[in-house]
């Protein structure tokens, strides 16, 4: 019986015994969903370069994935990934990080990578809080939620990351919760195959910080909440802003084709070579 191995185990570094996530953390589900997508596409880890920033979600790929992995500084993974992709256009470059990393300290890079439409998959595990540092308010924290730095509730508005990335020019944008791992895997597969900037937001439970501080409860209670409050994009367009206020709109927001930066650069270089 001990000889049974999980079919996705082969994608992890041999030295990895277990992930460092807290019990019930949604980041583990994001991890398996990514590997499941790679497995179903029949790709190998050598087809990818993975980049992460700082925070719990950055540890999804580092050190776990048995691949080229660059675990960078806080907020900057997309900037590093851009430098990699521009110089290794034949490889798939995937950034996996959290909401604080990608939208607070690193928000500018996210906006501009989407604007450039550089081919890249960015997966944002959004737990609505700073988990690793002890449960501080994040740009994604719901208004009025209590955190360690908003003891009377947050006074600020909540970032709608997916809408922001879509407005910035991404080719593919989807949002799922960790209650929808199969849909998530399907979107990751599409994102990997997308010629352009592909962004996936995963609403992911953090029972230890978000659950405890805001009163959202345990991992299971949070998944139950995701189940109850998720509505599809199609349904959301027929609803009033008041009706969707407390809902999580999930699904694929955009999936379009437009000029991709690396291809444009290659074309330009080809043209200059011809003229020279």
């Amino acid at each position: 019986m001990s000889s049974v191995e999980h079919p996705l185990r082969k994608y992890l570094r041999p030295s990895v015994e277990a992930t460092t996530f807290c019990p019930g953390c949604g980041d583990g589900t994001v991890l398996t969903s990514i590997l499941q997508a790679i497995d179903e596409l029949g790709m190998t880890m050598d087809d990818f370069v993975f980049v992460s920033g700082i925070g719990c979600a950055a540890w999804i790929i580092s050190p776990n994935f048995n691949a080229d992995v660059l675990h960078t500084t806080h907020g900057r993974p997309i900037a590093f990934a851009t430098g990699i992709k521009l110089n290794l256009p034949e490889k798939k470059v995937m950034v996996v990080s959290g909401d604080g990393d990608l939208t607070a300290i690193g928000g500018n890079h996210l906006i501009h990578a989407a604007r450039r439409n550089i081919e890249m998959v960015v997966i944002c595990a959004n737990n609505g809080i700073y988990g690793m540092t002890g449960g501080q308010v994040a740009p994604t924290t719901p208004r009025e939620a209590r955190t360690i730095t908003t003891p009377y509730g947050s006074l600020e508005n909540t970032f709608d990351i997916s809408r922001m990335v879509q407005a910035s020019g991404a080719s593919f944008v989807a949002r799922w919760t960790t209650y929808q791992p199969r849909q998530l895997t399907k979107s990751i597969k599409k994102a990997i195959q997308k010629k352009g900037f592909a962004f996936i937001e995963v609403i992911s439970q953090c029972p230890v910080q978000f659950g405890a501080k805001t009163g959202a409860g345990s991992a299971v209670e949070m998944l139950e909440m995701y189940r109850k409050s998720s509505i599809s994009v199609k349904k959301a367009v027929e609803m009033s802003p008041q009706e969707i206020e407390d809902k999580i709109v999930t699904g694929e927001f955009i999936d379009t084709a437009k000029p991709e930066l690396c291809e444009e650069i290659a074309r330009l270089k080809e043209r200059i070579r011809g003229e020279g």
Partner: protein
Amino acid sequence: MENRRVRTGKHFMMGNVACAEGAVAAGCEFAAGYPITPASEIGHTLAKRLLEVGGYFFQTEDEISAICAGIGASWTGKKVFVPTSGPGISLMLENIGFAVGIETPVVLVNIQRGGPTTGAPSMGLQGDMVQPRRGSHGDYEIIALCPSSPQEMFDHTVRAFNLAERYRAPVFVMADAFIGHMREEVTIPEPDELDLTYRRILEKGTDPSTVKVFLDEEVAPMPIFGMGFKTHVTSSCHDEYGNRNLIDPTALDNFIQRLRNKILKHRDEIVQVECDYDNCELALVAYGAVARCAKEAVRVARSKGLNVGYFRVITAWPFPDREVQDLSHKVKKILVLENNSGQYYPYVKAEAAGRAEVEFLPPQILGQVHGLDYVVQKIEEMLR
């Protein structure tokens, strides 16, 4: 066939343009930058020149992105260049430390301008001299070169690439607005006269978990991305194989000391100074634009019969400690000239302590190079 990388010949050229040409000649394939006075001409030149040779100049959303994209590009095996000015370096500092920590070859140029803060963008000041050495948090060593002319903007940029590749480390070229915007004759050699260094890359097929690819004082081969090495590269404290270790202080000690020793053990290959102080009583110490004035002041003072010599710092970091010790043994007095309020001076003074008397002379007005008479007068005073 015409070599498109090396514009061999004599040119009347701006320092910043010579710097960009040096990068292209050295084999740079990727540069990233954000517009900033007084360094912009480097990017302007590279935007065209890199495309001509199959490379790319990437204009980023900010300087943080520039250094990050540069480091990412370097991990694909490319020679990488990140030109900017002081405010840009201020933004990049965290990730310059990252480049040190994960041993990434990258060349940075700081065309220094008047600070603090936005300051006076088009005026030259040597105001950032300690910044590359101590600006990023933590304990580390850095390499920094100080060109004094457009010719040296070319030469030092080529050398900076060689050092970055040799030691898998960030290397600074510390110029200023005077040198960057100065136009002089620049001789670009024949391609085969350029002695270019390329980093050692891990042999294809090697499993990096069985080979030391980090923290080797003799410089480990780089397990670059895209070759199937499955390298784990992390900003966290790590061992020789890239495994993160956050619980063992000996791992941290190893992480810091080996990175420092990688530079310090090879300081003889890195440190360069220009010396002319045999049998002199006093020596002027200067670098960059100010060194031109110091050299001329020494010539004038000598014509007046004054026994004065000259010590030009070419490699600012690692600090030329043994060279300054030698100087302090041989002269009685040292006068440090800098176009700032005395940034390099304390290092010289500390190294010469107990042997030579060290004084500092700023320019009459910060942001201007020292007046010739003003320096000669000071020499006369000190020798009186």
